[in-house]
């Protein structure tokens, strides 16, 4: 972490720099700002969602240095030096990621609000275990809640993505 700063209003800020989906980010933030608010607010990357705010639902899941993390329980300054991947980093305008394609084709979403976090959790799983069994799928997605699908479509999506 770099030196602390004082803003005009007298509020203390800290500097943070990290890679967001490959792009270098450097800015001053409040030391109590959550990573999710930095991503959704300051950086306007609203694919990452906020739902419970206490790390229970996984809607705000992101990858920090390749590991799955709930961004509502991370402070923004904790991203210092990290490589962060959010849902926006998985696809470009034309081409969707194979996991996203599987979610599309197998009905892995309905309202879509848990989907970015769910896709990140699935990516984290498949990156380390390309052919997960039932137990591995249940374990990897157990931190992500979905209220719409009953998980049937999500399980089929992950199975479909894993066989590709």
């Amino acid at each position: 972490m770099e030196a602390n700063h004082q803003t005009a209003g007298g509020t203390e800020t800290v500097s943070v720099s990290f890679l967001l989906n490959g792009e270098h980010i450097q800015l001053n933030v409040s030391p109590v700002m959550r990573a999710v608010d930095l991503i959704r607010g300051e950086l306007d990357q609203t694919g990452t969602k906020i739902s419970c705010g206490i790390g229970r639902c996984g809607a705000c899941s992101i990858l920090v240095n390749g590991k799955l993390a709930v961004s509502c329980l991370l402070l923004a300054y904790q991203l210092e030096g990290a490589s962060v991947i959010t849902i926006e980093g998985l696809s470009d305008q034309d081409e969707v990621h194979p996991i996203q394609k599987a979610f599309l084709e197998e009905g892995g979403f309905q309202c879509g609000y848990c989907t970015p976090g769910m896709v990140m959790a699935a990516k984290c799983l498949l990156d380390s275990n390309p052919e997960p069994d039932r137990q591995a799928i249940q374990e990897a997605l157990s931190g992500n809640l979905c209220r719409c699908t009953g998980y049937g479509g999500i399980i089929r999506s992950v199975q479909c993505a894993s066989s590709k």
Partner: protein
Amino acid sequence: MAKKIRPDGKEKVTGRLKYLTDLAFSNMLYGKILRSPYPHARILSISTDKARQLPGVQAVITHKDVPGLNGFGIVTPDQPVLCKDIVRYVGDAVAAVAADSVETATRALELIHVQYAPLPVLDSPEKALEEGAPLLHPNGNVLHRAGFQKGDIESEFAKCAAIVEETYHVPRQLHAYMETEGGVIVPEKDGSLTVYVGTQHGFKDRFQLARILGMPEEHIRVVSSPMGGSFGGKDELNIQPYGALLALSTGKPVKIHQTRQESIRSSIKRHPMKITMKTGIDQDGRLRAHQTTIVADTGAYATLGPAILDFAVEHTSGPYMIPAVDTKGISVFTNNGVSGEFRGFGGNQVTFALEGQIDRLAAAIGMDSVEMRRLNIRREHDLGPLGQQIAETNGALDVLQSAAAVYAEKKPSSQNQDRWKRTGTGMAITMHGGGLGFGRMDPAGGRLSLKEDGKIEISFGFEEAGQGILAVIETITTEQLGCAKEDISIMIGDTSLVPSSGSTTASRGTSMVWHSLQRLKKPFLQKLLTRAARKTGTKEGQLSIGPGGIWENGECRLSFRELASEQAPIVISTQFDFPVSPDPIDSAHFLYTYSGVVAQVEVDLLTGRINVTELHQSLSAGPVVNEMGYLGQIEGGGVMALGYTLMEDVIMADGHYVTENLDSYLIPGIKDVPFNLQVKAVESLPAEDDYGPRGVGEIGTIAVAPAIANAIYDAVGLRVSQLPVKPETVLKSTEERGVLHGSQSSNSGGN
């Protein structure tokens, strides 16, 4: 085969879709709502001076700042927008703040000083009904009474070989939509207001907001889709009035997005009910008498409490023909939050009780429960549960047969390899009315246009909460018109652009889209072909609509763009009502769907934990419009009901929420559900049926709880009468009966 991908799919899986809580505008302020710390209290004074002085605060509003009606509620506006004298639950709003940051708005709430004089808390319907209880509303503590009687109940009971009486308790369920309530309200330069907040009925919100703001409806635009889930929970107004008042008072866009704690504190929930059923059966296995009392805890305000009780009363005897029925229901005001609209709408509660009765009665006379259901089930030409004519289908028997086949296959394999575990199988069936019912305004409608750019625009006043109405509209429109999905554009969720279609509730969306297309198709295609004939100089009879445009002899002669060019748009609209019974019986439904559910559970005798290992749902709801959407509704509904059965209860103590977030209110996670959910659609309808596909948004949630409950009985002999079924209850029951020590048979069902 190419899979049918939802029109909103790509934006959702890539995270690009902007939900209304994702929106940001320049100069936007952040709103926060101050809610009562007491479940029941008199307000003595409200002081906002200190909050107003906090730098960054731009507006603080109280009841004095409501220009129109200080009340909301879809039918009866009995809930104050901002309370003046009395607070009746811990979600009641007293003041609201707009500031330049969430943090400042939050800090400002702490600086608002409200003096309260606490009043006695009515934390149960029983307390509220006691003589001398304080009255929560001018007309007392009874929101609504409903009932239904037919036949001579006493003489029918006298003919019974067995009578079962049981009292069932069902919990307060949280919708737990992943996106909490929120959005942005924007004051426009011309003095109008744009409300970007999700809801299940944009026009109804506009109507309610106009009344509160003292503004003409035409000056309010409600952009209401998409939503991150609703399940009935966003049908009533939530944060809209506060955002609107703050936006008008500051002249700036105001964003409110409730935290999960704020959401749980203020939102409506499923009605807790206490249901006592006394049901009698004769020696031949025929149900003869069915007497029910329902006591619903409706909380502090009305919203749709009366209609929910009416619905529960109607569905009390389910798909069974019973000569004598006596049902009495009462919905009671308390200080326990607010109960209201929730997927299933009162049907879930009474079906749990009814199907519990059916299994108990079958056991009481030693009859196979499937056979008993078959003996009493309604047939195609039978009248509906309130004696009304209904759209005739054989759905009830169809789903029973389908479920019975699964049940017969699963039932014998009830032995568990693990000596500390028991497996059990249970089934339940139900029927569920769609639409709002007889005597309720239930208009629908839609509009089909050929726009100047050559797009065929189909528009409805329906909302996309996640259920997949966009996919339904795309499928039905392209199938009915014969065009391709690339030819159409879908418009929903914006009162300035769409026609009124009624609410996106009551499983009515899919059904009303289909009915609209039936009405729109012919005149629209006629106009298209007439114009095409003129443009091409070909006879109308030789032309048809196909992908891309107008076809003749297997070739596309004229694209839709060419057809549209340099001419006025072709616009066809329709307005009609949801079909109702020809019999004028208040609240009675006409279009029903049916489900048969088989559940298999594994009960751990050491921990009491219940694991649902299989869930099979058979449905009769007419033809499937969109396979993936249908499957998703039933699987998702089934798991939501699994949570209702085994996990979910918004616990309140003395009118305060004990469960405040998803760490104490647990909804099913991926480990809590069967890995392979099974859904079977029985699509057949009578040849003369012209009501098309029925909606399936609710039916998947109705009969799951009793199927699991009956499976628990099969596994360990516990008769479930209270939801959710807790491990402690299982352990207490199995210990009392010595199941663990094998001193008694653990498997009382079927032997």
